């Protein structure tokens, strides 16, 4: 039997149809020519006559080419009714429907894509939150640009920004002619006992000069006084707003009451505002607050902090 596919392909060659599309048309038309050829043979025609009959089927190929071109063009046009090149909405809806169909068809791929997107968005949000807090938002203190953090240089031991000793802090403070004031802070933990369940609390030992430097006032009560920084003065404590709410139920009469911390008695002198934070802002890059991390022998003032919410930081 003659190879009709080649015959048909030759006639379609000028159209530059997409290979898959062309292959289907060639197959379909060649089958038809096979049928015509066989029918002619059955009707008693010679092979040559049958071949001629089949070839005649392709007469008027111009019409076929014209129609195929239209068909090809139509295949490239938007399928949405009324969709033209300028119909952006129709194009968008078409794309959307196509995307949904593809997602339904490949649930595995869809899940991977959604998870990847979710992780990406989550990571971006987390990073932005940190950057926003640390870099973009100003420190919530009075004149934050005036605050500097002072370190001791100890590169020999591998600590280019080492924490100064308490004695050094006292020397700096007494000889200071550069800064308006200096303050010291030390990280400490306390066991709260005596009222309800015992609890481990994170806190800071700070010098009385810290709050005037930060320009932060307590929500109520007062901050530490210079007299309370002196050796032998009684233990006093400031509570964070979160701790006051959580542990003491927002007791309005908390000021003046005593707490047992690490087995010693501390008098509550005030409660800090809800938004007051210290440690997180101190992490701000290039942060500029004088800080001493050695415990001062004279430091008797303490601030407990549970920043932002009721859970310990």
């Amino acid at each position, binding site marked *: 039997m003659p190879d009709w596919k080649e015959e048909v392909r030759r006639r379609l060659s000028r159209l530059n149809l997409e290979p898959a599309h062309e292959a289907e048309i060639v197959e379909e038309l060649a089958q*038809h020519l096979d049928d015509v050829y066989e029918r002619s043979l059955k009707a008693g025609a010679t092979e040559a006559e049958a071949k001629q009959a089949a070839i005649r089927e392709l*007469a008027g190929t111009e*019409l076929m080419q014209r129609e*195929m071109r*239209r*068909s090809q063009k139509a295949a490239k046009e938007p399928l949405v009714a009324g969709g033209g090149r300028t119909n952006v909405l129709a194009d968008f809806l078409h794309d959307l429907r196509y995307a949904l169909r593809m997602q339904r068809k490949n649930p595995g791929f869809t899940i991977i894509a959604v998870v990847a997107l979710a992780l990406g968005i989550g990571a971006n949000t987390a990073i932005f939150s940190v950057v926003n807090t640390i870099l973009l938002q100003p420190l919530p203190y009075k004149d934050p640009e005036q605050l500097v953090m002072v370190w001791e240089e100890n590169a020999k031991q591998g600590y280019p920004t080492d924490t100064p000793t308490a004695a050094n802090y006292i020397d700096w403070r007494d000889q200071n002619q550069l800064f308006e004031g200096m303050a010291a802070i030390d990280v400490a933990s306390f066991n709260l006992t005596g009222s309800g369940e015992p609890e481990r609390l994170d806190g800071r030992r700070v010098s009385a000069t810290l709050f005037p430097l930060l320009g932060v006032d307590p929500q109520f009560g007062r901050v530490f006084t210079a007299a309370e920084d002196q050796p032998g003065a009684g233990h006093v404590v400031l509570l964070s707003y979160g701790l006051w709410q959580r542990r003491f139920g927002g007791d309005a009469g908390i000021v003046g009451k005593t707490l047992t911390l690490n087995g010693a008695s501390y008098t509550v002198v005030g409660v800090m505002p809800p938004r007051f934070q210290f440690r997180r802002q101190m992490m701000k890059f290039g942060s500029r607050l004088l800080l001493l991390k050695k415990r001062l022998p004279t430091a008797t003032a303490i601030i407990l902090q549970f920043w932002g919410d009721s859970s310990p930081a």
Partner: protein
Amino acid sequence: MPYKLSQMLDRELKKGSAELLILSLVEDQPRHGYDIGNLIEQRSRGRLRFNVASLYPLLYRLERRGWIQGRWVEKAGQRRRRYYRLTAEGRKVLAAQRHSWQEFVEAINRITGIEHA
């Protein structure tokens, strides 16, 4: 009527009715192209005939309009063939074309007096 004019009229009539013929033939069951071409030739007793170069462009055009839908079907012991079936849209078009054709033929008949002959 001179022979050439008659040929032209034939050609135009064939063109005008081609869509209706194809839609009618796939109305009840899906058919492949060769089957459709054969049926047109047989049922018109040889008066109407579409060759490959004229039949398939028509099929593709109807398919492009969404009136018929082609699908490759494989049957045991046979080559796979492309069968065309009428779509819901095609069914509506067929009904409308049938009605128009009927009205057209009746109008022509009334004018030419064939009806009363």
